[in-house]
Each structure stands twice: as structure tokens, then as C-alpha cells.
């Protein structure tokens, strides 16, 4: 029905009219019966998201199924809108003209008698338009559906309860032993060039014991030398402590006092300034 009802088009040369629009040439005839009052057109066209949207509108307005587009009729209506846009000097988007060309092409193909055998392979000329219209329509609908979903701060609101006793603790960084060793290795690599540092052969337990002894002794008060030793540590523990005391003496960190030969030895942290470096 679409082909028959389509205005005056009977010959291929007449339906080539819209091609002239694409090439920017002036229209030959202007349709007189506009569907929309011209002063409402600008607002009207603003509501469209492009030629597919306009086409969908035209189809829907006539209660037509997309699958059954009367191409000639829709083309004529579409061209009227396009012409109105021109009349109103609206910036005519290229997409509208491209669509006009596509419609015109479909119209012409449907009018042309098929005489060649191989045209059996040719699909319906409207198929591509129908596909695009359907494709567009489904996403147009999807856009509406998404917009209708409950939206944050429009329909639903995230609660923001107060926390009056908020107390934020900063967790201290994690450190692995490997990281410390790697750092130490870097130091060693650097100091290897300055060989005066002899850290090599010291037993760490001696160093640890040095720290502990320093912690135990007071600066202004002597403690008994023997109190530094704990006999339940065994022979090794005693040796370590003794070495630590010797090391501390060497570093001038401890002072050792014996009031009389074979008397009690006392220890205290060193206070008097002695130039030893």
C-alpha cells in the first residue's frame, strides 16, 4: 500500500528529487500542507534526537508498525519537516539530509520494477531502515527505562548517620624482617668502601647484653659488678655478659671501681667527661 499511496511518484526521475537536497541544490517544490504550525516547529524539533527519532515520531503518530512503513508517505512527511527547518533557517543537521537521501533511495528502489533474475538475492529495500529504526527505538526505550530506575539523590538517598564518638586510628605500617635486612645490606654496601667500620665479627648477643647492662646501671649510683651476672644463664651467659662489660668499658660507657685489692667491684654509668675520641 505504501507504494501506491505515495503521492505522485510514478517514475524514477521524480523520486530523485530529495537527492537534490543532499547535494545542496534548492528544492523544486515545497509541500504546502504542514502538520505543525511553523512557530511551534523550533520547539518541536528540539524534542527530537535526530532523524531516526523524527521518523519514529512520524510512524508512531500514524499508529503504524515499524515493520510496515509506507515509505513514500513517511518520506513525504519527513521532507516537509526538513523543508520547514530550512525555511526557519534552522541549522539543518547533516544527519537529517542523509536520512532524506536514504528514504528517497528506498522509495526509488521500491518503485523500480525488478526485471533481472538475480534480484531474487536482493533484500527488501526497507529492511535496512527498519533494522535501524528498531535498533534505535529499543535504545530509546532503554534510555527511558534507565531514567525510570530509582536514582540516588533523586529517588533514594544514602543515609548519613552521625558518629559522635568517631575516633580514627592510623594503623602503623607493616614491616617485615626482610625489609630491615635489605636496608642494612644497603648500609653495608655503602660502608664497605669505608673499611674503618668493623662490625663483622661481633656476636649480637654481646651487643644486646650491652644494652641491657646500660639499662640496669645508674649514672650516679654504683651497682655490684656481680649483680650483672645471672648464673642460671649458664657459662655462655656469663661470658656474654663479661664481654659486654668489657666492650662497654672500652667504649667508655661504664666505669669500674674497686675500692681495695680483692674488694667488691662496683659499676656505674660513666658521667665525667673524658676525651677519648
Amino acid at each position, binding site marked *: 500500500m505504501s507504494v501506491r499511496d505515495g503521492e505522485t511518484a510514478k517514475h524514477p526521475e521524480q523520486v530523485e528529487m530529495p537527492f537534490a537536497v543532499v547535494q545542496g541544490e534548492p528544492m523544486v517544490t515545497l509541500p504546502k500542507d504542514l502538520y505543525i504550525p511553523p512557530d511551534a516547529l523550533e520547539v518541536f524539533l528540539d524534542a527530537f534526537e535526530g532523524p531516526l527519532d523524527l521518523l519514529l515520531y512520524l510512524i508512531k503518530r500514524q499508529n503504524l508498525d515499524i515493520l*510496515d512503513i509506507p515509505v513514500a508517505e513517511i518520506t513525504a512527511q519527513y521532507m516537509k519537516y526538513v523543508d520547514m527547518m530550512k525555511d526557519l533557517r534552522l541549522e539543518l543537521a547533516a*544527519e537529517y539530509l542523509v536520512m532524506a537521501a536514504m528514504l528517497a533511495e528506498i522509495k526509488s528502489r521500491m518503485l523500480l520494477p525488478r526485471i533481472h533474475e538475480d534480484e*531474487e538475492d536482493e533484500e527488501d529495500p526497507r*529492511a535496512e531502515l527498519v533494522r535501524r529504526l528498531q535498533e534505535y527505538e529499543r535504545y530509546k526505550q532503554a534510555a527511558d527505562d534507565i*531514567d525510570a530506575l530509582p*536514582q540516588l539523590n533523586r529517588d*533514594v*538517598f544514602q543515609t548519613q548517620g*552521625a558518629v559522635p564518638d568517631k575516633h580514627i586510628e592510623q594503623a602503623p605500617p607493616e614491616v617485615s624482617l626482610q625489609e630491615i635486612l635489605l636496608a642494612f645490606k644497603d648500609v653495608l654496601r655503602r660502608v664497605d668502601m669505608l673499611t674503618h667500620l668493623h662490625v663483622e665479627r661481633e656476636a649480637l648477643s654481646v651487643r644486646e647484653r650491652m644494652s641491657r647492662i646500660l639499662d640496669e646501671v645508674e649514672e650516679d649510683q654504683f651497682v655490684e659488678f656481680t649483680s650483672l651476672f645471672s648464673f642460671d644463664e649458664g657459662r655462655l651467659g656469663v661470658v656474654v655478659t663479661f664481654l659486654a662489660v668489657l666492650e662497654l668499658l672500652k667504649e667508655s660507657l661504664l666505669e669500674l671501681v674497686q675500692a681495695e685489692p680483692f674488694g667488691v667491684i662496683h659499676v656505674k654509668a660513666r658521667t665525667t667527661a673524658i676525651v677519648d675520641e
Partner: protein
Amino acid sequence: MEIQYLKQIVEAALLAAGRPLSLDRLQELFEENARPERKELSAALDELGADYAGRGFEIREVSSGFRVQVRAQYAPWVSRLWEERPGRYSRALMETLALIAYRQPITRGEIEDIRGVSVSTNIIRTLSEREWIRVVGHRDVPGRPSLYATTRGFLDHFNLSSLDDLPTLAEIRDLDVINRELDLAEPGKGTENRGESVQPADAVAPLAEQEHQAPEPQKSAEIIPLSRPDDGAVND
């Protein structure tokens, strides 16, 4: 930990967070030695959901976790708390967003092919700034156009927990149907009928393929062939 106690901590956290909290994040609220199992947390969340029946708020799982939110039915009153109403997004923006949501990953050119009009840079920028979309790659064609996909933020904003929750996309009816209707509608077309009675198989294929793919949003990185080569002439 007793569920009653667990529930109170969970609801207190959700209420105060101001954003959705994942099960992992909820677990981290507890000391390691007192950390509840995920299924304990899920049970607590379920119970809270039931507790909130008949209240002005609800628990909702969205993409990045659970949140306590004010029910949509109270929006007319609650909206009055703020002077400004949230603006509506333009149809162009919503259509672009819908195409990215359902057809991701997708290039701007492919969106333009389907919408039939160009997509303004503003729209892409607005969607990116809202953190609803992001670039997930580039199509390996000249110009290497960006491939867009939606984010968790998009799902969170639209109250969805995954893309599967998107409204179902309308179906595309295939060419057989079209042709049947064409035949019925145009019984007297004479010679033209010749070409339509037998439908070439290759014309059906693209549509059938699309119909199969389209209703389910593509979440994989797989690239959907969008347009047939001859489409380009129309849109560019």
C-alpha cells in the same frame, strides 16, 4: 559473635558510611581474631532487611556493596531538604548512556551509528565526570577509538547490583516477520513479490545474530561487530 550484636554493628556502619560497603569492607571493621564469616554477615544483612520492613529506609545491595537508603516512596518529602532538585539528564545523554550500558564496550562512532546523530563531547565528558562510564580500551581500527563501558558507580547510582539487573531490552523482530507482514500488507505488488517470497539467508543472519546478543549486556571484553560495512555510507 552473636548475631544480635553483629547486626547492630553492621547497621551502625552502613548507616554512617555514606556509601555502599562490601562484605569484605564490613569484615574489616572487626579485629582479625573476631572477624565474622561472610555468611554470618550475609545472615545479619538479611535479618536487618527484614527488620526494616515498614520503616522509612531499607537495605539494598548495589554493585559496590550494601547500603542503607531512604525508600523511594519518601523522596517527595525528603527532597525538600535540599533547595535544588537534581536536574534531569537530557535524552541525548540518557540514550548514549543506555547504549554504553547495553552494548559495552562500545566506541563513540558505534553509538553515533545507532543513534543516527553525532554524540557531543560534552555528553561523554559529563558521563565520565559522573564516573558512570570509563574508557576500557581502544578498538583496533584506524584512529584507535576509545571503547567505553559503565562503572560500578553507574550501577550504584541506578540502584542496580549488576548489569543483569538492567531493564530488559526490547526485542528486534526479524526479517521473516517483516516479510510475512509485507506480503500480507502488499498482496498486489505483482512482480515485486518475486523477490520477497524467498528470503536470502545472508540477509537474515545479521539481524538474528543481533537479536541473540542484544538483550544481554556484554560484560566480557569481547567486541561486538556492530555495523555491516555498508552502514558506514549512511552515517558518515
